[in-house]
């Protein structure tokens, strides 16, 4: 398989390190080749920065894309929905607006960089589905996860905005179900599984973000799943840490364990909870691990 420039972002390294451990640990078995530049990445300048200044967001994003070109690669892979939305959008804008690209390159000239507009940005989940494929994932599974019933959360920016992603409608069939089923686990359909968790409103209005998250938690609880599986680090934080805050605020109990898809893969490949760094989760995974017989 070709080489991808891996852009982990900051939220995964700083807040969800087990996601990073698991994606690195599982990549080799899936023949996914990641290349990384020596210290050259910066922040992707995500939607919070775009909200304040469009040109700044474009320029910082484009600098990271220029690094991919310098590495001699044409595809960046990011496991973070925030980085994916930001950088995919920037690559898309700069790919079709030569005047904007010229303006951004004037800024980049100050740091001796130039972005030629050749990079494609892809989410890790897309690479699991399109490049690795369901069959290959099935081959690497040594630990049956058949006992698990999971609810998925792709996170909004894996499939929206549709204009940038290049699809007609975001609420149709979703490939994350196939990725789950490839591990043997069952993906349980439940109400509003594609609806926003409010993660990006954290610190802007905690009442609002927790009100939205609470609705999502209620729906998951009704679905009686063993755990939630997501590919978005912000969803992960909402459901792992934010869930505790909702429980305290509303005096309710949900206790829904959350895993990232890479962690689920690692478990299916027979890796231990320690190897995958799962002790960093706040909602205990004991019940899930017991159900699939992992220490």
């Amino acid at each position: 398989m070709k080489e991808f420039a891996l852009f982990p972002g900051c939220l995964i390294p700083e807040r969800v390190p087990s996601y990073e451990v698991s994606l690195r640990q599982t990549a080799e078995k899936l023949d996914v080749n990641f290349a990384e530049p020596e210290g050259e990445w910066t922040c992707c300048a995500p939607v919070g920065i775009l909200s304040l200044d469009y040109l700044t967001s474009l320029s910082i994003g484009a600098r990271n894309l220029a690094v991919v070109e310098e590495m001699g690669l044409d595809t960046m892979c990011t496991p973070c929905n925030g980085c994916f939305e930001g950088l995919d959008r920037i690559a898309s804008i700069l790919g079709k607006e030569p005047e904007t690209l010229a303006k951004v390159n004037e800024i980049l000239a100050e740091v001796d960089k130039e972005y030629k507009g050749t990079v494609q940005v892809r989410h890790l989940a897309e690479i699991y589905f399109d490049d690795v494929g369901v069959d290959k994932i099935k081959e690497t599974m040594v630990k049956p996860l058949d006992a698990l019933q999971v609810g998925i959360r792709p996170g909004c920016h894996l499939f929206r905005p549709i204009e940038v992603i290049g699809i007609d409608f975001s609420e149709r069939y979703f490939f994350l179900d196939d990725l789950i089923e490839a591990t043997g686990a069952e993906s349980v359909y439940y109400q509003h599984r594609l609806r926003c968790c409010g993660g990006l409103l954290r610190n802007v209005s905690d009442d609002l973000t927790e009100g939205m998250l609470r609705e999502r938690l209620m729906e998951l609880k009704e679905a009686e799943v063993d755990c939630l599986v997501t590919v978005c680090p912000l969803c992960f934080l909402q459901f792992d840490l934010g869930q505790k805050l909702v429980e305290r605020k509303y005096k309710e109990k949900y206790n829904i364990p959350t895993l990232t898809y890479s962690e689920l893969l690692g478990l299916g490949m027979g890796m231990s909870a320690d190897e995958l760094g799962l002790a960093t989760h706040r909602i205990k995974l004991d019940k899930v691990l017991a159900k699939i017989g992992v220490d």
Partner: protein
Amino acid sequence: MSKGEIEVPIKEPIRSKDLDPNFKYEIADTSLGKNLNACFKCGACSGGCPVGIVTEVYKPREVIGKTILGMREEVLAGDQIWLCATCYTCEDRCPQKVNITDVILTLRNIAFREGHAPKALIEQAKSMIETGWVQHPTASMDKRREELGLKRLPKKALEDLQTIVKATGFYDLIYGKEEKEEKT
């Protein structure tokens, strides 16, 4: 309720003298806000909004409607534009293909230049400018990452990022604003 009547709160009428008729063109002339004027105010955006479901305070149609009407000051100085969760569901469902979320991002850009932005986003920008990342590294996580066999977040290119934010004028907007606030 003495007469058995239903209590209804009455809104102040909107007067045309308070409106800026060019506001909608100001937005429609930007790269992200270009389809704004295709809106026929059907309300599909508000109907599917996950924020609007849990609060009455935010409805995308209201923001778009006020913008088209020209309620410049109310839109830019108000809280509503900052309450969008940017999930893009409204854009997906809009029958007129209005880039609703992107219009809101454009409104935020203008509001920020006019001195309005939530503290959380300013703090995020400062973290990015000072450490290279919106989610800044901490000593405790550095230690944990080492235990997990992971490298620290890179900061080699921080100087590049700082040069870029100075070149775009963003640095002055973030820090200049603070100095002005301190003076008042």
